[in-house]
């Protein structure tokens, strides 16, 4: 049996060296920086991620022009909503949760019905989604530089997720694939209805 050389121990040593003492998947304190915290916050928050993807499916089915226009509106509105919350202009209330459930219902319902909305209305819905969810993400958070960078990170996540999901939907021709996209809209609308019921029954408890 050959003796172990230093090279044989590189992989185990590196693995152990990089192993965290506690696995903090939400990156609250990983040291990766606020931008990555923002991106991971978006990716790990279904209330942010799901409507963005479903909205992208919806406008993706409408064609590249509408998808591009909505893509240019959504992240800036998200930033404005978040920035307004950082400036303490918006507070975390049950109203934000209720608006979120209405947006789930609107976006999901539009996709499920494959509604032929005017482009201006699609942009308006995207702007509302960005403003509401951006505000909800940063309500009660102080306006220091790392938080603004985190907000930029979230906007980057929004832009990327929307662009990828819309580009996946744009070339869809097969009926079953379009139906699958529409079913996802139906599921989001169902989520919106259930959330509305939760908010009605439990109020602020449901908006956690």
């Amino acid at each position, binding site marked *: *049996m*050959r003796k*172990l050389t230093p090279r*044989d*121990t590189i*992989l*185990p040593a590196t*693995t*152990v060296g990089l*192993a*965290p*003492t*506690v*696995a*903090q*998947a*939400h990156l609250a304190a990983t040291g990766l920086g606020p931008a990555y915290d923002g991106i991971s916050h978006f990716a*790990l928050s*279904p*209330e942010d991620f*799901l409507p963005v993807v479903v909205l992208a499916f919806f406008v993706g089915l409408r064609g590249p022009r509408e998808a591009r226009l909505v893509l240019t509106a959504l992240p800036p509105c998200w930033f404005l909503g978040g920035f307004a919350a950082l400036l303490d202009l918006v507070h975390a209330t049950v109203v934000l949760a209720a608006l979120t459930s209405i947006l789930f219902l609107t976006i999901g*319902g539009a996709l*499920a019905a494959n509604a032929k909305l005017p482009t201006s209305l699609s942009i308006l819905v995207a702007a509302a989604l960005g403003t509401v969810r951006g505000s909800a993400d940063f309500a009660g958070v102080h306006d220091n530089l790392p938080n603004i960078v985190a907000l930029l990170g979230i906007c980057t996540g929004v832009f990327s997720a929307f662009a990828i999901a819309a580009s996946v939907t744009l070339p869809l021709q097969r009926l079953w694939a379009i*139906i699958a996209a*529409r*079913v996802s809209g*139906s*599921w989001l*609308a*169902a*989520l*919106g*209805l*259930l*959330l*509305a*019921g*939760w*908010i*009605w*029954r*439990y109020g602020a*408890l*449901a*908006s*956690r």
Partner: protein
Amino acid sequence: MKRFAGRWATATVFVALITFLPSAALAHIVKGEATGFVSGFEHPISGFDHIVAMIAVGLWGAQLRMPAIWLLPVTFPLVMAFGGFLGLIGVPLPGSELAIALSGLCLGAAVLTEFRPALWVAAILVGIFGLFHGYAHGAELPPGQNALLYSIGFVLATGLLHITGILIGILHRWPWGKIVLRGAGAVVLCGGAFFLWNALI
């Protein structure tokens, strides 16, 4: 051989070191969230009356073919969620247990006989049953869960049950498959009769 032994030793050291990794991996578990998703996912699949009805919707949709095969699964979650909404806000809807039992009976009979009504009739029938199923779920929702994750689990499980029904419904392409589907309809019908019996006594 020596090379193999060296790699074996490396792997052994690697595995041994892996065992020293921390056990406190707190990945993603924010208090209450995992419970919310899991309990939401479990809710629709925890009762056979719900399972057979939802799978039967998929089977019937497959028998009715286009556009029912996609219209029913798109419609059902929405109507069911509306029923859940009514249950959550406390609107009284008497006879929901009876209607749920009847749904198994009627949907089973529809699959068994390959009943082909007009599309709007099928959609309304499925919608009414979906409303009662959703209502029962909504009225029973436990407090203190994470609303969003619970709802995601709930809707996902419901949708997956439909997809299961639709996938089984692919058998309808073949003559023997049609017989199998009708047999499945008979099983759902018997289940519905059993649940109806339990609801009445």
